[in-house]
Each structure stands twice: as structure tokens, then as C-alpha cells.
């Protein structure tokens, strides 16, 4: 065991961790925005809007993220859309996050009693008023725990971007292993760093779930 290799290269791994958190955070924000759009479109009464949205959600949620990354990074250049690895990974992850966030948004809105919408309508509110003042304030509360869970998933899934060469924690670990050959120590350290980030997040998520059920 050569744990001194870990201490010597810790800064490099932490530099990768910073990149992991930046990517996951950025993707969470963009994915949530996309998720709200998709989720609301999905609930549209117009089948010409509802069904295609559902199709987009099924594809992003029903296929492996790595396939979406490969398709965007290696496949899209065939259509003349050549993206560098970093934007390609972020785009793939945003679509993936958007599809999952849309399902969270849909679930939260549909979990509200129908009477809420009916009451708002009978008070003379139009669609956007009903959404802004009645439905979303209640639904957003229910979205918070699963969205936190999605953030944990995104931090873990950022590791997939390493496969197409994006620099983040997993890639930083691989590069260090290429120089030092200490794969056991370094992968274990990387796992530990991921754990230190994700475990508190999982605990917070559980806490948020509990306080939601208590309310």
C-alpha cells in the first residue's frame, strides 16, 4: 500500500472534485428549468403537446446516460453538430436531468387534490394564475426532497463524463493512476470523496422527506 501517493496527489483529486461539483450544480439548475417546462407541457390537455413531451421524457429516462453521451458526442457530428467533450457531457446530463426533473414536477403536481384546480378555476383564475398562486407553491414543496435526490444522482453520474474525457473527479483519479499505478488506493480515495459529498446530502434528503410528511 502506498498511501503517500494519495496524500501527494490529494490536491489534484480535490481539483477534480471542484469540477464534479460545478458540472453537477450547473446541470441541476439547467435540468430543473428544463424539467419544469417538460413537466408542465407533459400535463397539457392538448395531445399534440402532451404525447411528444412524453416521448422525450421516455427516451431520456429509459436509456442509459452513457448512451446519450455517446450519441451526442460521437453521433451528432454526423449531422454537422460537433460539440467539444465538455458541452457534450453537460448537454447529455442536462437532458437526462431534465427528463427526471420533469417526472418529479409531474408527480408533484398530480399528487395535489383535483379540488385545488377546480376551486381556483371557479374563483375565475386562468391557467397561469392557477399555476402561479395555487398549484406550484404547494407542488414545489413536494418536489424538494426528490430534487435533492436527483442532485445526489447527478454528482455520482458526473463520473460518466470521464468516459468521454471530461475532467472531473473520476478523470483526475484515472490520470493520477496512469502516473502512479496505485489504483486501489486512489479509487478508494475517490470513492471516499464521493461518499463525503453524497452521504450528508442523502441524510438531508431523508430529513426533508420526513418534515414533508410531518407537515
Amino acid at each position, binding site marked *: 500500500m502506498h498511501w503517500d501517493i494519495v496524500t501527494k496527489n490529494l490536491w489534484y483529486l480535490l481539483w477534480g472534485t471542484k469540477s464534479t461539483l460545478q458540472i453537477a450544480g450547473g446541470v441541476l439548475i439547467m435540468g430543473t428549468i428544463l424539467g419544469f417546462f417538460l413537466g408542465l407541457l407533459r400535463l397539457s390537455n392538448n395531445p399534440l403537446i402532451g404525447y411528444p413531451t412524453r416521448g422525450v421524457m421516455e427516451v431520456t429516462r429509459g436509456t*442509459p446516460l452513457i448512451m446519450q453521451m455517446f450519441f451526442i458526442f460521437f453521433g451528432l457530428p454526423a449531422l454537422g453538430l460537433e460539440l467539444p467533450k465538455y458541452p457534450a457531457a453537460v448537454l447529455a446530463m442536462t437532458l437526462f436531468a431534465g427528463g427526471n426533473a420533469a417526472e418529479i414536477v409531474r408527480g408533484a403536481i398530480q399528487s395535489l387534490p383535483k379540488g385545488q384546480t377546480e376551486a381556483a378555476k371557479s374563483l375565475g383564475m386562468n391557467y397561469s394564475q392557477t399555476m402561479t398562486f395555487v398549484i406550484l407553491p404547494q407542488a414545489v414543496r413536494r418536489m424538494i426532497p426528490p430534487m435533492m435526490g436527483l442532485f445526489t444522482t447527478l454528482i455520482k453520474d458526473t463520473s460518466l463524463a470521464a468516459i468521454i474525457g471530461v475532467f472531473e473527479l473520476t478523470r483526475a483519479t484515472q490520470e493520477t493512476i496512469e502516473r502512479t499505478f496505485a489504483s486501489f488506493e486512489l479509487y478508494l480515495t475517490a470513492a471516499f470523496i464521493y461518499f463525503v459529498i453524497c*452521504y450528508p446530502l442523502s441524510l438531508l434528503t431523508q430529513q426533508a422527506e420526513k418534515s414533508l410528511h410531518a407537515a
Partner: protein
Amino acid sequence: MGYKLNFSVIWKNLPLLLKGAWLTVEVSTGAILVAILVGIVMGVAKTSRHQFLRFPAAWYVEAFRNTPLLIQIFLIYFGLPQIGLKLSPFMSGFAALVLYTGAYNTEVVRAGLEAIPKGQIEAARSLGFTEIQTIRYVIVPQAFRISLPALSNNFIALLKNSSLVSVIGMVELTFIGNDLTAWTFRAFEVYGAVTVLYLALVFSLSWILAIIERRIRLLI
């Protein structure tokens, strides 16, 4: 760009792609079955009265749920040989899938067991059921029914996650897709076809699981 889409590469190599899809089905089915066992054993351990069973189970769940599957695959395949445990790509990938999904299954089984009111167990015992009979006739049927939808989600996640084992050279659908792209340079067509195949697999699995859920609801 002088690139013209040419889907004939898909038709020509369809048997190969379908073989890849079948390998993914085999690996996923095997891993699902073993991960159920892991989930049951660890789930029971996590609800145990004994701390020496509860603690390891709890740490197993947290360790495997809060680290990326990819890192687990790398750690098992590249890291373990360094401490003398050398596994083939197949065994490493399979073990990682089972351990990762097993951790999620453990939580589902635990929640299923804890959802059964204590009074039911007390009632069964006071009716003269033995401990085994209580488990067989009172706890398992209900816990299974409660757990099934969440387990189904884990199985579908496993099917998608099985694509990751291609990175250490385990042959399945993604691996074959990568190979085919390398020979033909038809990334758009090949990855498009592989995506469609995954979608078909995921839909089929959710359909089968929905049927099983309905059957079991009628049965128990």
C-alpha cells in the same frame, strides 16, 4: 460535412446488435436475481434486533448508494488485484452491479418489513403461529407486495446501469455498439440503434414487471 446517413450498416449488423441486447438481458437478469437475495439478506439484517447485524448492513447500504457505480466497477476490476483479488471483467462487472443494486434493494426490503404493523406479528404469535409461520404467512406476503413497485424501479435502473460494465471490457450491448462504431465509423446510426434497443429492453422489462405486480396482487 460530407457525411451521408447510411442505415444499411445497422441492417447488416443487426444479428450482432441483437446478440449484444441478449447478452445485456442475460447479465441483467442474473444480476437482478442475485441482487434480490442480497436485498433480502441485508434488509432482514438491517431490521434485526442485533446491533452486530444492523450496523454492517447499514454501512453497506450507505457506502454503495453514495458512491458512483463507475468508481465501484473500477475499484473492483483495477483496484482489488492490488490486494490479491483478481476478477475477470465479467465477474467484476457482475459483482459491482449486484452490490450497487443490492444496496438499493436492501432499503426497499427494510421499508417493506417496517411497514407491517407490530400488532400483526403479535396477533399471529398469540394465535399460536410459530416464528417461521408468522414470517411465512404474515410478514413475507405483505412485505413483498409493498416492496415490489420500488424493486421494479431498481431492476430497470440495473438494466440501464449494465451499460457501464462495457468500460472494463465486459461484452454486452454498449460494448458491441462501441466496437461496431470503431469498425464502421457510423457513430450516429450505431448509437441511435443501440439507444432504440435499450428503450425496447426497458419498455419490455417494465411491461413484464407490471404484469408480475398485477398477478401477485391477485395471488396474495
